[in-house]
């Protein structure tokens, strides 16, 4: 019995220490955002806590003329919201069509989609850039949003989900004379909010945090996303560490709020991405 107890204590000890280590970077972010520049760049010693929190850092970082934080936050929000909504519509409909259609070539189309699933989007950024630049979409919101709307993974997951959706519900609507679209909108969608929320949250997070594509496309400052703006702090000629950490903290607010209120759906979304056995 005592060995059982000590085993449990050891378990909590390991988890507790691991949890502390995992929280250190968040502490560092907060510390950086509230410190003065002198405290951060002083090369002789490390300060654990900013002695007098610099709340003015927040106003300063928004007023920085070289990094348009407010503009890039707006861009990121516009991109993430639009992408999330449209991915749900496009992939949700495609997934339903693939799961329910009786046409003979539905499976062939599905395997084509699975084939593109094998090629991660990041590897094809050069071809995508070639396409987007020929369309004249470099440094536009269109160029940032539209190429990311056709996600094979989301379509794949929706199809798998709809295959398990109870057919009896749909048949009841069909008997009442509803066509495929009305059945989809009035029966299937209202009964799938949980799954939809899961896909929505992971799409939003992926969009907000994406870096490579916005870096490639957002060449003018007006088209920078928040991640691109933050990155320019890192590579800038003049060091502004307090401004950088403050901007980073501000950039995380939307996702931290999501994690606070929607964590259940986020976890469900992550679990979906692993279920392909």
């Amino acid at each position: 019995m005592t060995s059982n107890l000590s085993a449990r204590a050891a378990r909590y000890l390991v988890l507790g220490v691991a949890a502390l280590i995992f929280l250190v970077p968040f502490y560092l972010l907060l510390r950086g955002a509230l410190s003065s520049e002198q405290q951060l760049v002083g090369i002789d010693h490390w300060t654990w806590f900013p002695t007098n929190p610099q709340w003015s850092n927040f106003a300063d970082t928004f007023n920085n003329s070289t990094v348009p934080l407010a503009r890039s936050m707006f861009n990121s929000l516009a991109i993430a919201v639009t992408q999330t909504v449209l991915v749900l519509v496009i992939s949700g409909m495609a997934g339903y069509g693939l799961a329910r259609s009786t046409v003979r070539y539905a499976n062939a189309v599905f395997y084509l989609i699975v084939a593109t699933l094998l090629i991660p989007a990041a590897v094809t950024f050069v071809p995508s850039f070639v396409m987007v630049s020929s369309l004249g979409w470099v440094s536009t919101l269109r160029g940032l949003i539209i190429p990311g709307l056709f996600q094979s993974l989301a379509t794949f997951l929706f199809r798998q989900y709809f295959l398990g959706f109870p057919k009896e519900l749909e048949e009841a609507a069909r008997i009442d004379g509803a066509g495929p679209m009305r059945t989809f909108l009035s029966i299937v969608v209202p009964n799938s909010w949980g799954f939809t929320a899961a896909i929505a949250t992971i799409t939003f997070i992926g969009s907000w945090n994406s870096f490579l594509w916005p870096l490639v496309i957002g060449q003018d400052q007006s088209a920078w996303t928040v991640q691109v703006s933050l990155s320019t702090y890192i590579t800038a000629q003049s060091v502004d560490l307090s401004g950088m950490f403050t901007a980073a903290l501000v950039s995380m607010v939307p996702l931290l709020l999501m994690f606070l209120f929607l964590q259940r759906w986020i976890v469900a979304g992550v679990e979906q991405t692993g279920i392909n056995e």
Partner: protein
Amino acid sequence: MAEQTVERAGSAPARPASPRRKWTDSPHLWFWIFVGPFIAGLLVFVVIPILWSVWLSFYDARNTVTPTHFVGFDNYRRMLGDASFRSSLITFVVFAAFIVPTTFVLSLGLAVLVNGVRRGKAFFRSVFFLPTACSYVVAAMIWRHSLFGGTAAGMVNTVMGWLGGAPIAWLSIVHPPWYWLVLVSVRLWLQVGFFMVLFLAALQRVPQQLYEAAALDGATGWKAFRYITFPQLRATSTAVLMLLLVNAFQAFDEFYNVLSTTGGYPPYARPPLVYLFNVALGNGQDFGDGSAGAVILTLIIAIFALLQGRFTGIGRRES
């Protein structure tokens, strides 16, 4: 017309004939209404760009995407002959050799620990999962300028100072390559929680009776893990390994943000995508070479995925 009637009769034999049936009843039409927008987008923004890129890879396409000078396999020869392209593949192999096993072991270990506690399960899961909210850019910034600051004012250097160690310039020296520690730890922190959630979900699907039966035979603790838990996690484990490998292959964000300076990216530790970024979108804008590189990388990753698909059977769940 006749064919459609047959199709319709075959798909919905139970439906009574109704005078309101029109062209909107065609299953082909409905298939394309639902799936068409996705397929059209996939063609325009994924399939055609890839084909275009394959075409470009056989042309001299510096600063142009509509080249006229055909050069055969020259771009491929140049890419494969380029020592820095080959070293980018080696960088990936080294990175994967570090990051894949450590993430796997740590996320599985944390999942087993969290799954085993009675109180605080949700709390621990949330804490380990929280880094998923953080972008690679923000994490790279914290790692580079706070945690692994290269002077006595860096946090790790401060802690090492208590133990009598001298401060290390983590990112500005190549021998020994301390930058690997920075690059691997930042990705570990960011992705361990994500994969822990995958393992937790799989652990909760393991039937409890298996453990009860094993306990009767005296198998508990490590033995139970070795002979019950681990085999039951086989499908999830292969999926996680695949995701980890593909993610490592696509590594860009943390390398770019941890190692770039005002003078550009250093000549070492360039993973494939950073290399490609410099070739295709750097000063040269060489889309011929860039496309050849993209085609080579796409082939490598597709072969990986196909081999893996043989084992995990992606898309065959319904059968």
